[in-house]
């Protein structure tokens, strides 16, 4: 008896809640339905902001924050006052800027790739090239490392085997141990991995250019390169501009996966970018306050860059990228 009473009561209460829910304004209803997911965003993306207080305490892993000593801006000041950290920061910033700058400098390559690919006559071959050249984008940097190793290493690398077989060299060349041109090598791997993929967006933009423009230009006697220069390139500029702004917004976020995988004691001076530096200091070196200071400053600079890029986009294109 009691049980069924309770059950009935439960049902009534539940239908009460449902009724309340049904009667709500649609906006509130939608918000309540979304709330669990918004909460997840808050937990994983906003809650960590609380951790910025570690920058002001002599915090060590495993301690409670109130057990540690308040040190104020000590680690902020050490960035400029301490000659060792100052020189480290200069070196890391140099690597970060060089890698991002090289990325922007080569940002025309996907455009050229797309333009010349679309000039190809055979549609079938175009499709095959597009499919195969995007493949490296879908493997992880670890596999890229493995690929690089099996191409260039001593003993098992393809290139050395080829050179030996063709009798072009007597002893194998240790390409991978070279500490020269680290930046260019890293850039080369990035291009190998990403060129075909980045071109897809431009290929799509090319197909949306009005074909009549080309016909009219050809009638007027314009050759292939004039058509490309005066019709295709201007047609791709809006897309290029958006992507350029995004890479400016991400100027100091060049990620760390690639650099983490390829770093070794020999190339560390050139390969350590900001993200990797934070990892090496904070998680390997266990200097949590200092690493927090660096990542905090990095976050602030990157949000400023983002809003600058957004403003540029608004004033030039009348559209925001956010």
């Amino acid at each position, binding site marked *: 008896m009691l049980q069924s009473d309770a059950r009935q009561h439960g049902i009534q209460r539940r239908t009460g809640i449902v009724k309340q829910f049904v009667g709500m304004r649609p906006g509130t209803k939608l918000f309540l339905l979304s709330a669990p997911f918004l909460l997840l965003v808050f937990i994983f993306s906003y809650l960590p902001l609380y951790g910025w207080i570690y920058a002001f305490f002599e915090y060590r892993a495993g301690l409670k924050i109130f057990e540690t000593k308040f040190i104020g801006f000590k680690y902020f000041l050490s960035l400029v006052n301490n000659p060792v950290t100052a020189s480290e920061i200069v070196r890391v910033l140099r690597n970060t800027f060089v890698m991002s700058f090289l990325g922007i400098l080569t940002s025309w390559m996907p455009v050229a790739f797309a333009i010349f690919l679309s000039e190809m006559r055979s549609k079938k071959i175009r499709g095959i090239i597009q499919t195969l050249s995007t493949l490296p984008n879908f493997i992880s940097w670890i596999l890229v490392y493995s690929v690089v190793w099996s191409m260039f290493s001593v003993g098992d690398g393809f290139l050395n085997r080829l050179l030996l077989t063709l009798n072009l060299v007597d002893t194998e060349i240790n390409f991978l141990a070279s500490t020269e041109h680290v930046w260019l090598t890293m850039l080369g791997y990035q291009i190998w991995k990403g060129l075909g993929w980045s071109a*897809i967006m431009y290929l799509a933009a090319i197909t949306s250019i009005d074909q009549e423009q080309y016909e009219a230009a050809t009638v007027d006697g314009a050759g292939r390169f004039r058509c490309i220069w005066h019709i295709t390139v201007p047609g791709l500029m809006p897309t290029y501009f958006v992507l350029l702004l995004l890479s400016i917004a991400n100027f100091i976020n060049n990620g760390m996966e690639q650099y983490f995988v390829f770093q070794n004691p020999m190339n560390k001076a050139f390969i350590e970018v900001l993200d990797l530096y934070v990892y090496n200091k904070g998680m390997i070196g266990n200097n949590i306050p200092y690493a927090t200071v660096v990542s905090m400053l990095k976050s602030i600079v990157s949000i400023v860059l983002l809003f600058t890029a957004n403003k540029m986009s608004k004033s030039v294109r009348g559209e925001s990228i956010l």
Partner: protein
Amino acid sequence: MKKRRNPSETMFQLLNYAVFALFTLACVFPFYYIFINTISDNHLVKTGKILLLPSGIQFSNYLQVFQLRGLGNAAFISVARTVLGTLFTLVGSCFLGYTLSKGEMWQRKFWYRFVIITMYFNAGLIPWYVTMKNLGLTNNFWAYVLPGIVSPFFLILFKTYVESIPASLEESAQLDGAGYMVRFVRIVLPLATPIIATIAVFASVGQWNSFLDTVFLMRQSKFFTLQYVLYQYLNEVNAVAATLRNSPTAQHLDPSKLLSPASIRMTISMVVVLPILFVYPFFQRFFVKGIMIGAVKG
């Protein structure tokens, strides 16, 4: 449109084909090279005889690497995170993308920005790590799945797609008394299958390739993924080869089947890359579609 054929045109086409052929070859050949080295006679591999064609074909490398301790478990973790991670991110990102596409949502613009800005801005590695640790998400399988449930990029893809569906379809269901959940499941999802497929492909490749989260969060080897194990083996491959050589099963193997450090590296690389190589040709068009929709907005 037919173009005139003249010598300079032919030259241009030839040169164009040649350049693209070279680049495409550079993209594909390494995988081929690794593959032929894993199925060839290991003695020939070791002496550097395998260059362009396989020789003495055998598949024992693949059987042998799966005897490596941890590799089977790592494969299981990789598959599990790929399946669960993809399912969860589909539910979260699509549903939130749907509710954020509704003009009547309370403070819609604010919440949309609240989600999107996390693409560009984060608190930094160390604060994030400490938060994950405090949440109990270190050495915990769910750390692979939960943070990815709402992905801003997938949300944008889904929202953009949903906004292109005619509103009248939902309106008629609304008149019949269907609520948001019913409309989402019965009307929006069936119409959105192309973009769902795209997101599923992106998400599963992302999960399969993901690697740094293991580096940051996992210390216990039972949570290691294939990518991480590959990374470990790439760094300490000589020791692994010695263990395998000295294992009881390997003692009576003939030299053509004996694994060298190089064959171990290459075989594990193949194990990691093969799933992608298999699904890739079928999924390629989804990627293309996805990046084009994504291009509409950032």
